[in-house]
């Protein structure tokens, strides 16, 4: 019997760090995008399509395209390397990017449809009562759709624990550096260490079950 920490020395902390950073990103971008998508803005259809794409697009393919773009010879990666001498691929930031891309539609879309479903009249009422867009967002939209915001964040963070496809490609599954909890389970099974794999699966399962019941209480599953 090996202890949990001995099974995957860095993975638990790494997954928690990724989840934490992604949660902050979702808190800002998810709410902002959900609000934007519910409003009649120009190019809304395109923005919506880009955000929604990962719901259907295979993660491995997304990961590959991101790898090509952010790799040292890619369009964005090359520029980053030359100007900032910074390489995103196979780093902590790559893991965050993977989780962010995979989870963003799960955060923004429920917020969008909650606003469209129950806050449209209220937004208009706030406008007629003299409030601007920003005041309306803070005073009306966020408090009214708070349950959907929590649900969206839960789904998004849950996805970050489970994400494999993009993470494999962009993170590289480097033990001790970009080995997340999910990948650690896979690696332990490959090593034949089923005892560790079971422990890590239980841990991940418990976290997910917690998120799952939170979502059901919010009425969003």
């Amino acid at each position, binding site marked *: 019997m090996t202890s949990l920490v001995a099974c995957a020395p860095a993975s638990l902390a790494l997954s928690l760090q990724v989840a934490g950073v992604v949660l902050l990103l979702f808190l800002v971008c998810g709410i902002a995008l959900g609000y934007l998508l519910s409003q009649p803005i120009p190019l809304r259809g395109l923005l919506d399509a880009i955000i929604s794409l990962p719901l259907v697009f295979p993660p491995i393919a997304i990961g590959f395209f991101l790898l090509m773009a952010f790799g040292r010879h890619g369009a964005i990666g090359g520029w980053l390397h030359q100007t900032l001498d910074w390489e995103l691929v196979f780093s902590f930031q790559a893991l965050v990017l993977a989780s962010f891309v995979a989870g963003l539609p799960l955060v923004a879309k429920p917020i969008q449809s909650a606003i469209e479903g129950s806050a449209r*009249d*209220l937004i*208009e*009422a*706030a*406008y*007629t*009562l*003299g*409030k*601007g867009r920003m005041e309306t967002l803070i*005073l*009306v939209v966020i*408090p*009214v759709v708070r349950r959907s915001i929590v649900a969206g964040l839960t789904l998004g963070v849950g996805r970050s624990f489970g994400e494999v496809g993009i993470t494999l490609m962009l993170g590289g599954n480097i033990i001790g550096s970009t080995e997340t909890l999910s990948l650690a389970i896979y690696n332990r099974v490959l090593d034949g260490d089923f005892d560790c794999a079971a422990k890590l699966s239980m841990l991940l399962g418990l976290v997910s079950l917690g998120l799952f019941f939170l979502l059901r209480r919010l009425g969003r599953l």
Partner: protein
Amino acid sequence: MPDLQATLSFARKDFALDLDIGIPADGITALLGPSGCGKSTLLRLLAGLETPHQGHIRHGDRIWLDRAMDINLAPRHRRVGFMFQDYALFPHLSVARNIAFGLRRGVDKAACVRFWLDRLSLRPLAERKPSALSGGQRQRVALARALAAEPQVLLLDEPFSAVDFSLRQELRLMFQEAVADAGIPVVLVTHDLEDVRQVADRVGVMIDGQLRRLGPAEDVFARPGDAEVARVLGWPNTLAVQAWERDTARGAWGQVAASLDPLMRPPEVIAIHPDGPTPTSGQGLPVEVTRVTDMGGYHALLCRLADRSPLRIHLPKSSPVPRPGSSARLAIPRECVIPLRERSTAPNLTYPNPRHA
């Protein structure tokens, strides 16, 4: 007291709105019309919640909208009080906070909220959330919230439709008293004739996105202008005329004597006022009586004419009433028969703004 003047063109899918309306700052203007006629859209255009394809809106001397000059004031700068059909109360705020939401800067918040709580008898409900209120209470909160923001124009979309019948009379009175001294243009959209009769000083009738009639309430009720408007205003009996012979109108339903205006194009429809006709043993319009209802002060008779089209007449309690199911003949006094065109084509039935008249 600045008035509101608007000329608007708006189109969306299979709906188009095209009209010209002037609303003075005294009294209440009610807009009636069948569902889908564009009443609510007009309110949204006036509030700036929709943008017309062409148009001009002026409040007093201030231009709110001019598509030609690319002026389009945002809703929050128009200072329009808008009461939504479902009230759109903020569910996370108490009654008092809902009322305080739109208060101008520099206003004594607490005093103003207290004033409106008292004015609409909401004091004991101040700390409740909207979900804990009844329909009539929500309606009063929505009105208080709109008025507390000191709007320059008040627009109301079906303000009484979500309220139980037995409360409407009291709410209409409260509403009337609350807006009486506001001195701003007030426009109320409704499909309930009782609303109009009880609160409206002016009545507008919209059909198919056009304002077909606008004028003082009594005038519009008495002279609807054409048959479509008459039906919207609750005139029960409009009969298609197939032929005129001297002063007699004929149709599949029978024939009646009517006075024709020689200058008018031959009317396509006659309306029969329900209060004049009486059963007669002599000559008259043959009907089959389908139902007799005691309406308190009078009896309402529902009849079928020869072509099965319905006719409704009101008999004083003193007159004898035919049995339901029986045949009868009705004497129709000439002054109860109003010849109308189905649809007026007169270019402007809009009642002139009293200030410019």
